């Protein structure tokens, strides 16, 4: 099956996955999302587009990414663990898959300007990279709080020629960056593509972002069959908006015996109220253009998410994840900041791989899940990004500057 082959899991023509998804956007944006959907429908069956995308993944992003067994980490999980190494992609995370795809679509639509939101900065850096490569103007909206905790990525984006605009409204994090990007888009939609970074937002974003990331799961499935001789018992991925998770899940979605496990940011703990566990404890709502589970108060005001990981700090989630949860095909639970940071340090020390704090949530999930599978069990964990960008957080968290040890 190809990466762009329609599946029985595609949304309906208006972007609904069951009761989720759709288009809850101002009428002014409908023409743009219609244009995007029509362009994607043409592109996904156009060999020229598909081949150009594949060429960029191979020759620019460095795919296929490795599948690495992590035996010493696995001792702590009590089961066999393989890591899908999205951290080895150019720009250091899975995000490059989606931005290359959407940047190519932008060119096809004849648009010259790209805007994007970013939380941790991974999607912003990836977008700035793709725009530099393909000659597009790039503006990245980033919550002011995030520009402070991810200063290195701000510098990277600027070096790549992007304009980074700190967003000072609301909670000054990812959700507010998306709000500001939507405001820009509605104003400049004629020449501008909004390169949304996660599998959320109005149709067709959840569909096309997923499809651009399906390569993760397609590769992982082939690789695990080759290396382990069988399918895994579970595939584990972190979920903020849910793009890396939906990409790897789709490689296994028709393998009924493979559990699909999404790990959400539990922040200071679910009881504390300071977390981003949208699927675990959220309620149905519409945010940023689609129906999904959201974190909200009893008046429907969106509440702030909290996570040590800027990339998971989001009070919404992709509509397809909401659907997979409801139909029971995927399962979701949360791990705390502390559990994620413990897994961050553990993988670094045992395997010589410093993971992103986002991905460390998936690793912490694997540590929780492993014992129930036992030594004969087999897990594939999506290592969605590398941890270089998170060193400031780690230095502070573990006191590394003062001779502390993780």
């Amino acid at each position, binding site marked *: 099956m190809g990466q762009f082959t329609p599946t029985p899991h595609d949304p309906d023509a208006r972007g609904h996955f069951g009761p989720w998804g759709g*288009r809850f956007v101002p*009428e002014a944006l409908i*023409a743009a999302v219609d244009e995007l959907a029509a362009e994607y429908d043409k592109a996904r069956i156009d060999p020229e587009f598909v081949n150009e995308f594949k060429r960029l993944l191979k020759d620019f992003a460095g795919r296929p990414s490795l599948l690495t067994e992590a035996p010493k980490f696995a001792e702590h999980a009590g089961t066999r663990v393989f890591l899908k190494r999205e951290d080895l992609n150019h720009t250091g995370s899975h995000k490059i898959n989606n931005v290359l795809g959407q940047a190519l679509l932008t060119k096809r639509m004849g648009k010259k300007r790209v805007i994007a939101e970013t939380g941790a900065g991974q999607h912003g850096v990836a977008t700035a990279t793709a725009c530099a490569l393909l000659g597009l103007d790039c503006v990245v909206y980033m919550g002011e709080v995030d520009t402070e905790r991810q200063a290195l990525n701000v510098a990277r984006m600027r070096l790549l020629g992007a304009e980074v605009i700190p967003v000072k409204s609301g909670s000054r994090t990812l959700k507010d960056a998306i709000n500001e990007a939507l405001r820009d888009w509605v104003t400049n939609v004629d020449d501008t593509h909004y390169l949304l970074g996660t599998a959320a937002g109005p149709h067709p974003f959840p569909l096309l972002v997923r499809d651009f990331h399906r390569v993760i799961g397609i590769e992982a499935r082939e690789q695990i069959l080759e290396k382990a001789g069988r399918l895994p018992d579970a595939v584990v991925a972190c979920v903020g908006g849910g793009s890396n998770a939906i990409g790897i899940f789709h490689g296994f979605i028709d393998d009924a015996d493979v559990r699909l496990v999404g790990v959400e940011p539990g922040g200071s703990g679910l009881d504390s109220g300071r977390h981003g566990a949208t699927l675990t404890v959220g309620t149905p709502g519409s945010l940023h253009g689609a129906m999904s589970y959201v974190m*909200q108060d009893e008046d*429907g005001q969106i509440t702030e998410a909290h996570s040590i990981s800027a990339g998971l700090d989001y009070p919404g989630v992709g509509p397809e994840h909401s659907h997979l949860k409801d139909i029971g095909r995927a399962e979701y639970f949360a791990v705390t900041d502390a559990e994620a940071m413990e897994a961050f340090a553990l993988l670094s020390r045992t395997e010589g791989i410093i993971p992103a704090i986002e991905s460390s949530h998936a690793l912490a999930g694997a540590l929780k899940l492993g014992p129930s599978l036992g030594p004969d069990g087999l897990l594939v964990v999506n290592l969605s990004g590398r941890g270089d960008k998170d060193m400031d957080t780690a230095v502070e968290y573990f006191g590394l500057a003062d001779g502390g040890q993780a």
Partner: protein
Amino acid sequence: MSLADVFATARAESRAALIGYLPAGYPSVSGSKDHLRSMIESGCDLVEVGLPFSDPVMDGPTIQAAAEQALSAGFRVRDLFDVVASVADAGGRAVVMTYWNPVLRYGVDAFARDLAAAGGLGMITPDLVPDEADDWMAASEAHGLDRTFLVAPSSTEERIAMTARASSGFLYATAVMGVTGARDVVASTAPELVARVREHTSIPVGVGLGVRSGAQAAEIAGFADGVIVGSAFVSAAAEGDGAVRALAADLAKGVRSAPAAV
């Protein structure tokens, strides 16, 4: 009294209707009641009572800040109905303008029921397109409320026709591609859009986004059935009730200085 009557009355006077927006709870719940009453007394034919929302993606800085202030002062959705009722009790006509999520959370039918009970006439839904509005269509029918959907310069002919069919009371034409906020000039896209709308429907058309002066109101009144003013009232409310009254009076004069469009 219905929205149709509001526009019929204005037409009978050969003028456009003046529609003023203010978020409930801004600058406080009681302050918003006072200002809305002043807007009506000073010439607004209809007021849009905004529901402050945490993520107002269609709004520029002025209304964003007002919503943030209202919410941080403890505004609750139940206060909205209280504000609407105070407008109705004072003999004014009110619709609610709200992002969709608070309505979803409240329950679409329950929201419609309580809005109608408070004396509200309808609802403007900036991030709900008719394609997704089955529940609202049913609830508005059940509770006798009017539905105002939006059209934009980017809307196709098909979508304008569809949106007009789904609307009742009046249709909201966004004058420019962009978010709310006062602008210096009326965009040339506005008359073009209104002309396109009229090809498809006889429903009254209100034009908003960027209007702040009597002169602009007069210009829009030359081609539209309603002139919608939002951010400028929010800015005036920050100055005080005198500024709100003065703005409403200036705008009311504006809509009377141009011949009505139809």
